[in-house]
């Protein structure tokens, strides 16, 4: 009895300690979300928070801000476009690596992985010059292409364990029936691999959604994404914290859903190369 009570007390104390750690860790995020619901003038006055300060004014302003709206639209377009391309290309490559043995297979697979980890600054200067020469700078397709570059190796490695777990008997049966290799991949294998495709697509989308450096350097006015627009809101002379925080909160919604929904895959996702803009 005594022992059970001591165990209960210990777990209670640990629970309280964990809760305190969580509150301290999430406090800065809470401040950002809260500031999105306060007016700039209230934020700048440094007045302590009161319920009466809550307002949707900053959201109304930022959702009328042409720069942020264009950025948001571009972020969604580039995200979807880059995700679709990366998953299509990555799934084919991952299938090739997992189902065939050929010379250079290991070098290729590990090479992809190393490419995923290269610093963006090492590539972006050359990409800037190339895109400028090819008139791809400040275009949705150019920026998407640059996102495909880091997402394809990522998707390949995310998919390998999913693909390895799929039973080969269906494919073998299809082969006996005389299907072409690509027909087997397309009609038989991909439907079986759907869960893995969804997971890797979600990771690829968040990678693109969070990215900043390529967007900053490879775009100008037309193809700039929401993170670049938000940077514009805080960089200037006028301090529009309310709008910046409202815009930031809008950007955080998909990330929040992602973290909670993808719990099971987060460790795998991070060791496949890290989620990093």
């Amino acid at each position, binding site marked *: 009895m005594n022992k059970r009570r001591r165990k209960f007390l210990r*777990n209670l104390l*640990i*629970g309280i300690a964990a*809760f305190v*750690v*969580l509150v301290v860790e*999430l406090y800065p995020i809470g*401040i950002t979300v809260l500031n999105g619901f306060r007016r700039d003038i209230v934020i700048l006055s*440094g007045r302590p928070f009161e319920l009466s300060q809550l307002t949707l004014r900053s959201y109304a302003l930022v959702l009328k801000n042409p720069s942020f709206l264009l950025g948001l639209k571009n972020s969604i377009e580039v995200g979807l476009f880059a995700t679709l391309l990366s998953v*299509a*290309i990555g799934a*084919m490559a991952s299938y*090739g*690596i*997992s189902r*065939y*043995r050929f010379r250079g*297979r290991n070098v*290729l697979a590990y090479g*992809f992985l*190393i*490419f995923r*980890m*290269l*610093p*963006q*600054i*090492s*590539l972006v*200067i*050359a990409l*800037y*010059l*190339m895109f400028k020469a090819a008139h791809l700078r400040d275009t949705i397709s150019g920026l998407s292409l640059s996102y495909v*570059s880091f997402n*394809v*190796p990522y998707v390949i490695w995310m998919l390998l*364990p999913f693909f390895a777990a799929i039973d080969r008997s269906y494919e073998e049966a299809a082969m006996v029936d005389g299907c072409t*290799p*690509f027909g087997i*991949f397309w009609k038989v294998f991909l439907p079986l691999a759907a869960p893995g495709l969804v997971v890797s697509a979600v990771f690829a989308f968040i990678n693109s*959604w*969070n990215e900043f450096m390529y967007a*900053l*350097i490879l775009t100008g006015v037309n193809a700039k994404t929401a993170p670049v627009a*938000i*940077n514009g809101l*805080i960089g200037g002379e006028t301090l529009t*914290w309310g709008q910046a*925080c409202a815009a*930031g909160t809008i950007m*955080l919604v998909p*990330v929040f859903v*992602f*973290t*909670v929904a993808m719990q099971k895959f987060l*460790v795998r996702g*991070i*060791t496949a190369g890290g989620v*990093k803009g």
Partner: protein
Amino acid sequence: MAAPLLFLAPSLVVVFAVLVFPIVFSLVVSGFKWPLSVGAGERAFVGLGNYVDLSRNPEFWNSIKLQLGFIFIAIPIELILGYAAALLLNREFLGARVVRTLLLLPVFFLPIISGMTWRFMLQPRYGPLNALLLTLGAPEITWLSDPTFAYLAVVVQDVWRMWPFMFMLLYAGLTSIPDELIEATVVDGAGFWRRQRSLILPLLTPTILTALLLRIIDALRVFSEVYVMTEGGPGSATLLFSLFANRVAFGYGEVGLASAMAIFLLVLSIVFAATLVRKNMSLDILEEKAGGR
């Protein structure tokens, strides 16, 4: 041979166009004096001149110093915090799952939102951190306009954002240690510290090394959060490697010199990435069911 090539061709085209070619191109550009804008003078071949210039450039060494300091200060703190939290949270209590998940939020947040958040936290007068200092009767600190405090703030931002990353990996490692092993040391009468030293640390060492390598590779290319937080300032107090290269290329317009920096960082990153891949990543998962074709 034809079938695997069919499946790999699209990815090889992409990798060649947007990874291999830019690297080769950077290598070429790094051998030239290459102004960003056409009006700023002629391109001229200088051989290894840019690398020699870099080695004599105090700003370059400053950025290396800042970058190394960033890695050597932030990552050990993240490791210690992550380890402690993993030990604390490796048991079930009411809400344990919720705490473990929500702690990971900062890791997946947009880096620029992290930078923006901390830029706000550290503002004079109305920033929450200074408000706290004032309430405690301490003098206000103008964090982001003081070189030392700005650098410290950049490190704190990274620790805040990334210790849960360490926690996540170490926790995953801890849960894979069988309970019987831990109970056995309890029965043996080993105390907390002896249990850490003789059982848990040795078993976790591979996980810790992986986590450290992942973090170092990541920290080598830090850019967005610092750019939004300080833009490398005040002066060049937080001008980490990527920020400095960006400034050289697109601020000073010296693309050749910046490309030499790009190649330097590339080589360094490949060393770490190759170590990680050799140590940790394996295609063995494919071999269990595979017969090959």
